[in-house]
């Protein structure tokens, strides 16, 4: 099933004397596919939680249509969830599944091409009816016509077995059928030796107000598990040992969850009340949902009338001394551009979260892309610099959110945090930090309470644009503070006094000062993150954001083939780390894979005059590790020739 040889390690005996063998694997990629109403995302999330609590390393890729309920049984309605789990550290949800579970003909048709020959294919036989087959253009039933001979196909009547299991539940047929995803989850839980208590607890919690539904789902789940144990259809089950991880407490976390918790932590660690102004948009809405749950922390969430009101209300809250945050996706950033420039001009702290999705326009709302980098950098009128940072994994969204808040508060500037759909919905095990180990942001708040200048006659006065010489941040004097009344706004302000100024020299000075303030952030960030184990690679791969996992997996493959390559990954995209120019100059060739048409490459070429080799794709899906490995290998070989002892690139992560 995987690149590693399976080893039969033990036998288990099931009721009825059936002896089943257990095969040990180092990693598996499972894809669950069904109708958008079949509950595939829930099933996937539950399997993920079981896997996480078992101790495997994992990475997930949910993939669903923008339509909430596309017509049943059609190709546009197919929803899938891919999970990669292993007994070692992994970085991606896997290039291709080893196992495909297809709940109907549409799911089979939409996903079969991705299942390598010989892979395990589990089908719900009940759904392969003439009507369902016709809907997706199958002239004959693939289960019977021999077209699936290249795969290990197991066709099981999942729906009717679920109905049988729930015959005494008192539920109607339609309601009982809905539990077939839990039957399937039970079967998979048996196949992969997953702990089941968590799922049972989850179902009890989820349906605590509908105990009959909870009971039915638990019954279906157990029936699926028992079916696996007793049926002859599955002779083998698989064991994937826990992955070695650093000691500590872990949980499974998605990017949007981690980002939300990072914002809560930033508020707590700065002492500032958090205000979120947001308009619902895929794939960012879950941050609004999550933060809305944490009112006990004094967090105010405001569902605004539109994207502009989302950011405008956050700016108003920041003026009042809150940590103002707005969350959105690319089309929302377009709408917020003018207000972003207001935050730049008024020099107020603001965190803007852009969970990027396929664009332009409405684009691919539920698919991932990283094509808003240039919009984040330049999408405003005038010279309007702001800080831009990006998380690299779901769990890293937590730290990135705290870092965004740190920069916003310290430098009194909007910060764009560029997550994406893959990070937002993907999940991984996350080592739970202790709150006291998180950065202390209280020192950065520093509200102004005393006049900082005086008029010609010596009267003390407050100068709202007299800057901190080190950070160039202006004072943050909040309404309610006596004697500090001042007016800010979008018109150009005179240095120090903040009065309206149309003076040519002042505008030139203020424009350069705003830029210098953002450039100066580089002094507060560490050196470029370079992974070059031998220190003498001549080729480097540079990335940002969610490509970290696929690039890292690709780099591992290349290194296993005996080649040398450095991986550079950027958290800070504006400003870049101070040493980035020197780092890039060390390498003969620099490859930059991006899920856009070369936006970081453009910035690096412009700033450092380095001949970056851009490798791009915009398929709405993360890169495949194998594809990146091949690209990197070609660059290395064309630079220095293939290593003498080169093995063919490939293998697992």
């Amino acid at each position: 099933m995987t690149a590693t040889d399976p080893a039969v390690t033990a036998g288990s005996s099931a009721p009825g004397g059936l002896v089943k063998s257990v095969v040990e694997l180092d990693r598996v990629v499972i894809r669950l596919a069904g109708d958008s109403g079949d509950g595939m995302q829930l099933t996937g999330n539950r399997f993920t939680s079981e896997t996480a609590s078992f101790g495997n390393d994992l990475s997930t890729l949910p993939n669903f249509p923008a339509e909430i309920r596309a017509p049943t049984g059609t190709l546009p309605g197919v929803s899938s969830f891919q999970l990669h789990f292993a007994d070692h550290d992994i970085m991606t949800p896997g290039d291709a599944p080893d196992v495909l579970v297809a709940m109907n003909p549409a799911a089979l048709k939409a996903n079969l091409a991705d299942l390598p020959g010989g892979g395990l294919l589990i089908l719900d036989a009940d759904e392969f009816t003439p009507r369902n087959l016709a809907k997706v253009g199958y002239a004959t039933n693939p289960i019977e016509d021999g077209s699936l001979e290249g795969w290990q196909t197991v066709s099981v009547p999942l729906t009717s077995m679920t109905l049988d299991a729930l015959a005494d539940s008192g539920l109607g047929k339609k309601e009982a059928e809905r539990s077939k995803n839990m039957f399937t989850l039970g079967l998979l839980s048996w196949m992969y030796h997953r702990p089941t208590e968590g799922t049972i607890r989850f179902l009890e919690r989820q349906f605590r107000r509908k105990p009959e539904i909870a009971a039915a789902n638990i019954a279906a789940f157990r029936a699926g598990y028992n079916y696996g144990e007793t049926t002859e259809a599955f002779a083998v089950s698989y064991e994937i040992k826990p992955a070695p991880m650093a000691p500590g407490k872990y949980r499974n976390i998605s990017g949007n969850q981690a980002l939300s918790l990072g914002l809560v932590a930033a508020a707590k660690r700065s002492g500032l009340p958090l205000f979120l102004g947001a308009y619902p948009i895929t794939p960012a809405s879950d941050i609004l949902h999550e933060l809305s749950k944490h009112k006990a922390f004094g967090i105010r969430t405001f569902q605004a009338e539109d994207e502009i009101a989302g950011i405008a209300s956050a700016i108003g809250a920041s003026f009042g001394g809150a940590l103002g945050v707005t969350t959105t996706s690319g089309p929302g950033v377009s709408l917020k551009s003018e207000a972003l420039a207001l935050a730049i001009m008024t020099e107020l702290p603001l965190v803007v979260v852009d969970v990027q999705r396929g664009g332009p326009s409405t684009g691919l709302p539920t698919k991932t892309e990283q094509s808003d980098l240039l919009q984040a950098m330049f999408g405003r009128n005038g010279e309007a610099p702001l800080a831009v940072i990006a998380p690299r994994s779901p769990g890293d969204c937590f730290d990135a959110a705290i870092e965004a808040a740190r920069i916003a508060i310290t430098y009194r500037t909007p910060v764009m945090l560029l997550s994406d759909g893959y990070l937002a919905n993907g999940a991984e095990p996350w080592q739970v930090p202790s709150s006291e180990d998180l950065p202390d942001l209280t020192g950065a708040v520093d509200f102004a309470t005393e006049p900082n200048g005086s008029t010609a006659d010596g009267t003390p006065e407050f100068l709202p644009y007299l800057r901190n010489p080190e950070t160039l941040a202006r004072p943050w004097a909040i309404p309610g503070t006596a004697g500090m009344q001042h007016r800010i706004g979008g018109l150009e302000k005179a240095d120090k006094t903040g009065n309206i100024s149309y003076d040519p020299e002042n505008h030139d000075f203020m424009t350069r000062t705003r830029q210098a303030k953002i450039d100066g952030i580089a002094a507060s960030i560490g050196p470029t993150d370079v992974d070059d184990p031998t220190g003498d690679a001549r080729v480097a791969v540079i990335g940002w954001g969610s490509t970290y996992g696929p690039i890292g997996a690709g780099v591992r493959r290349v290194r296993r083939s005996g080649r040398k390559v450095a991986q550079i990954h950027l958290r800070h995209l504006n400003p870049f780390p101070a040493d980035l120019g020197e780092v890039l100059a060390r390498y003969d060739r620099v490859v930059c894979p991006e899920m856009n048409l070369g936006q970081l490459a453009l910035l690096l070429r412009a700033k450092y005059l380095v001949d970056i080799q851009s490798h791009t794709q915009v398929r709405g899906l993360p890169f495949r590790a194998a594809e990146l490995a091949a690209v990197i290998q070609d660059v290395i070989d064309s630079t220095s020739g293939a290593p003498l002892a080169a093995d063919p690139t490939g293998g697992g992560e």
Partner: protein
Amino acid sequence: MSTTDHVHDLGMPAANPIDAAVAASVASQGEKQTALKAKDFKTDQEVRWCPGCGDYVILNAVQSFLPSLGIAREDMVIVSGIGCSSRFPYYMNTYGMHSIHGRAPAIATGLAVSRPDLSVWVVTGDGDSLSIGGNHLIHALRRNVNITILLFNNRIYGLTKGQYSPTSEVGKVTKSTPMGSLDHPFNPVSLAIGAEATFVGRAMDSDRKGLTDVLRQAAEHQGTALVEIYQNCNIFNDGAFDLLKDPATGTQWSIPLVHGEPLVFGADGAACVVRDDLGGLRIAETNQVDASDIVVHDAHREDSSYAYALSRLSSQDLRYTPMGVFRSVQKPTYDRMMSEQLDVAAAEGSDDLDAILGGNDTWTVSA
């Protein structure tokens, strides 16, 4: 103030920095200074409206009446958008933000809900609030956030030099409409009432007493208050309100709204407002109707259809224009309800950061 009542710090930063900053500044001057004069609300900035602009009159009226509200300058914030009227904050010695076109109600909303201790005002114009910012205006009104909105209506775009506005009468000849404008104007009062506003008033820039009276009621209202102020643009739309300002015609066409008083107006009270057969309102001659049929103004009526019917008495040529407070009713304010939700959450839950970081399902890897 209540922003921090919900935060129970556990070994984290001791005091909410907002409270600390406010307390420090008050301590340094002894106590909140609320015994103020009009001049205390003036800034050192030169007022740059055109000579003769109605905005001067409004600015003076506001600066003169504010001391009577007893609000300290530092507790007042004026947020404006873009347009002539939106320069207002620069001339007021309070906190202020001259923001971007149309967005002032949204900025004010974020500020007012996160700082319920402040008195938050919006100054806007007919283009700013009814054209580019129409969406924010109606949503602020329906939410009933505690803000006071002064809508300077001069029925023209002044700062861009004279295009017609969403309140210009049909057929308005301007630079952008040489053959006359085609679109039907908004009646801002009707719009506000339709948007569930809890307080709606209208006043004339030159009527210091009437303006002050409406502004005072608006300022004291809990919730979103909208005051439409007819404001003369003497450069691009001079005389737009002369029908109502001219002593010869003003009495004839203005209907003064006084809560609890019969709606009688015109020379010698010759005209009045009565109910029509369809449940709306119409104008009648006082001597032609029974005195008991004359409508007695009730600004506190819960059902907004009466206030709406009042707003429909006037037409775009300003005949039969009610002036005063149309509607003033009490409803829970958005900011207060949000604070209450936070209080409930704080009472029922905890703000233990480590607890939410761990979540429901964790596992431990031992060394």
